[in-house]
């Protein structure tokens, strides 16, 4: 249960090796935390968090969607789940024209698995009458570009699904929020050319923590990306093509 400070008692971090996911955890109020589930392919403990909570690793294979239902049952087996952070993700490098297999993996992880697990968790949260889910989308879903549209499309799908689910959940006590980070300096993006407004995972973690506490359904990290997203989507194709070229 959340306490009177709205601080979560039980959290599930799905994709617990994600640097952004871990950074979010660090910025959340952890005074009330009792249990934190760390779900990933090969679960490992998190360092640099001081809390009296039990950090419980659970094996989770994103692409094995048949196992998801059982996995979600585990998350609710000890009582209520207050907050789920869905941080699984894969970068569909380049474009489908050069690496289709990579793009397929991104589709399976970023869209199929993330959407499915989100829906399963939401269903259980509705039964308990409360809960919040944070989904990590991306600024890349704003408008297709020639260099990352496969990745962008997976995040656009997830983003759409999350916002739709959030509408459906109105009045149930459960809500979903979507975080759209720009270019984030992490292992996943190591070696890539940095885009303008590149931020660290820490910055994203901070924005995400305040998004979770608020009633908002969409957040950008850094926040300057919010007006930029509007501008990007309104630009004529030729202009957009020119400024988005790297």
């Amino acid at each position: 249960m959340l306490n009177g400070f709205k601080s979560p008692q039980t959290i599930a971090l799905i994709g617990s090796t994600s640097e952004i996911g871990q950074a979010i955890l660090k910025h959340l109020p952890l005074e009330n935390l009792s249990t934190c589930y760390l779900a990933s392919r090969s679960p490992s403990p998190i360092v640099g968090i001081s809390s009296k909570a039990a950090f419980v690793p659970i094996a989770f294979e994103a692409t094995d969607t048949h196992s998801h239902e059982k996995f979600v049952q585990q998350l609710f087996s000890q009582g209520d789940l207050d907050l789920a952070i869905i941080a699984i993700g894969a970068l569909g490098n380049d474009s489908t024209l050069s690496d289709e297999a990579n793009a397929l993996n991104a589709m399976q992880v970023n869209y199929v698995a993330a959407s499915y697990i989100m829906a399963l968790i939401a269903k259980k949260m509705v039964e308990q009458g409360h809960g919040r889910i944070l989904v990590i989308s991306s600024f890349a879903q704003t408008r297709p570009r020639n260099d990352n549209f496969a990745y962008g499309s997976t995040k656009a799908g997830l983003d759409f699904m999350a916002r739709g689910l959030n509408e459906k959940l109105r009045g149930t006590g459960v809500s979903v929020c979507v975080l759209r980070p720009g270019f984030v300096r992490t292992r996943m993006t190591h070696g890539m050319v940095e885009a303008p407004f590149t931020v660290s995972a820490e910055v994203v973690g901070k924005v995400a923590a305040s998004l979770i506490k608020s009633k908002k359904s969409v957040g950008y990290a850094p926040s300057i990306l919010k007006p930029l997203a509007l501008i990007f989507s309104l630009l004529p194709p030729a202009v957009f093509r020119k400024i988005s070229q790297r």
Partner: protein
Amino acid sequence: MPVTHATGWGRTNFALSRSEQPESIGQLGDLVTSTKDDRGILAHGLRRSYGDSSLNSGGLSIGLENIASISIAPETGVATVGAGASIRSLEYKAREFNLFPPVVPGTGFVTIGGAIAADIHGKSHHVTGTFSSSVERIQLLLASGELVNLLPTGESASQFWATVGGLGLTGIITEADIRLRTIATPFVQVEETREPNLSRLLNALKSADSDFEHTVAWIDLSGDFRGRGVVGKGNYENHPHPSRNKQSDGLSFPNIGKVSLINPLTVRAFNEVWYRKPLASGKKSLSAFMHPLDGVQHWNRMYGNSGFFQYQFVVPDGNEDFIEGVLATMRDAKVASFLGVLKRFGAQSPAYLSFPKPGWTLAIDIPQGVKNLEAIFNSLDEELCRREGRIYLIKDARIRPEHVPVMYPRLNEWQKVRALMDPSNLWQSDQSRRLNLC
């Protein structure tokens, strides 16, 4: 079934639940036996608990406002009261017979069911004990649908004392017999003294206890936090005097949305006036003396939408330095409070989870939004655990579950009795889930 949104009195905890208000005990029984729900059932009264004691997210929430009959047998002085009746309405009815409940809390807007489930106390605790000391019988609806009568002694005693202070988690209290005391007049002889610092305030309270049935102190939690305050003392007035027996609702505080009127400046100004106000002496009406909080309805709205916490603890004698420590902590955190209530407790009640125990209790209202407040509360709790103190669960919105068995060493015994009374875990609350009570 309608889904309703409810909050505790402090407006910090929220819950969506299906809600029902049965018309009779019979209807209540049918409702309970026909409900199959993993999230369980919780009965509630007037929702004066501050945090989540009266909330049941995702489950069934049953309001007992229609089960509120009061009948008084003047020859025995015993009132048979429906659980949904308020203390205020019982007082009003009792006064017709020159009777009065021996234990009443600071607000009359508490139901009989709630008073038992929280084993409430009042200004008379050092003399009368808790509310349960005047309860002669509890009628309880069990999860099986069976209605049982529980008595404080004999075979049902363990169930009786598990239900007293049991936060509604042993069954639904439907009715109770309350032994009333006779009063000559509906007045109290009141005396007040002003004390310039904490040690004087503590001493004044201590010495007042031998001469007065009702004692309490208001403590100034602002400015330099040296613990100055006003001690209020009272005894029932014995000389008859004509009076009216009238229930007044007083004023109502408007809903002011996000704004909070509570800040160090307003509190400082209020407390200065309150400390300097002319001291009362002489006759005061029972209701005005007993229920100072009831002058303004919905006063919790004063804190705006973000709400407030009440931190109420008890520490055994010899831990006066802890109270000083709390004042210092508040001063350092720049938290001012206009409601600081200090009182000495008498003996512990036989109820497993009853809050009062011999020593000092302090209740402080603090607005949400103070920096690091959650961590401050947690570290005070840890210190309390070391000093065998405890937090009042009916005021709690945020303690950590591992502190409960330390603060309430008989939790384990209570859990065993409770498990026998409710093997299917039907009775649940947000607080019972948060604190792993059941």
